[in-house]
C-alpha cells in the first residue's frame, strides 16, 4: 500500500530565502506524485504533479519538485519565498482502489510560515 511521510510539520523561513519541504513515499508499484497547497480557510489547490518523464517538475507560483526514485522522495522547493506563500502544503500519492479507479493518499501536511 502507498503511504506518504512529510518530515516537517512546520517550517518557518524568512522572506526571500529559499525553502525545501520534504516528502517521502512508500510504494511497491509505480506512483504518481502531487503537491497541493491549502491557504487559510480555503480548499486544496494543485501546485504540481509528477506523472512520468523529466524528474524535475515545475509548478505554479515558482515552485518546483524533484522526483528521486532511489530515495523515494519528492521534495518541494522554491528559491525565494514571499509572504503570500504562507500556507499548508500537502504531498500526495495515487493509489489504486482495486475497483478500477485511483485515489489520492495525503501526507499530514507541512505548515510554511514566511517571516517578514
Amino acid at each position: 500500500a502507498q503511504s506518504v511521510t512529510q518530515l516537517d510539520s512546520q517550517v518557518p523561513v524568512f522572506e526571500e530565502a529559499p525553502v525545501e519541504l520534504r516528502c517521502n513515499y512508500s510504494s511497491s508499484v509505480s506512483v504518481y506524485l502531487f503537491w497541493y497547497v491549502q491557504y487559510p480557510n480555503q480548499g486544496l489547490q494543485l501546485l504540481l504533479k509528477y506523472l512520468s518523464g523529466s524528474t524535475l517538475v515545475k509548478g505554479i507560483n515558482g515552485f518546483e519538485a524533484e522526483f528521486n526514485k532511489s530515495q523515494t522522495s519528492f521534495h518541494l522547493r522554491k528559491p525565494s519565498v514571499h509572504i503570500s506563500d504562507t500556507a499548508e502544503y500537502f504531498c500526495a500519492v495515487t493509489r489504486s482502489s482495486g475497483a478500477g479507479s485511483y485515489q489520492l493518499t495525503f501526507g499530514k501536511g507541512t505548515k510554511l510560515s514566511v517571516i517578514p
Partner: protein
Amino acid sequence: EAGVAQSPRYKIIEKRQSVAFWCNPISGHATLYWYQQILGQGPKLLIQFQNNGVVDDSQLPKDRFSAERLKGVDSTLKIQPAKLEDSAVYLCASSFLFGTTSTDTQYFGPGTRLTVL
C-alpha cells in the same frame, strides 16, 4: 469556469444531532469525492462517486455517515448522529475523467468546517 461549491462553510452542532453538507462539482466532472480533514492531518477519503454510482466507500463510517449523488451532479453528505470526533473540515472534490486514470487532477471546494460540541 466556476469551481467546486460547498455549503454551508461553517456548522456548529451538539453531539447526537444530525447535519448535512452539500457539494456542487465543476460542470461536466464525472467523479466526485468527499474527504474528512481532521485538524493537523491530511485529507482522508470517505467516499468516491462515478456519476451517481459509488466506486469506493470503504472508509465511510456507515453506521452514522451516508452520502448520495442523485442524477450524477450534486451530492449530499450526512452525519446522523454526530459524535465529538466528527469535528473536522469536510472537503468535496471533483475530477473530469471517469476516475480510471491515475493522472486525473482533483479540484477541491473550500470545505465545510464542522464543530461538534
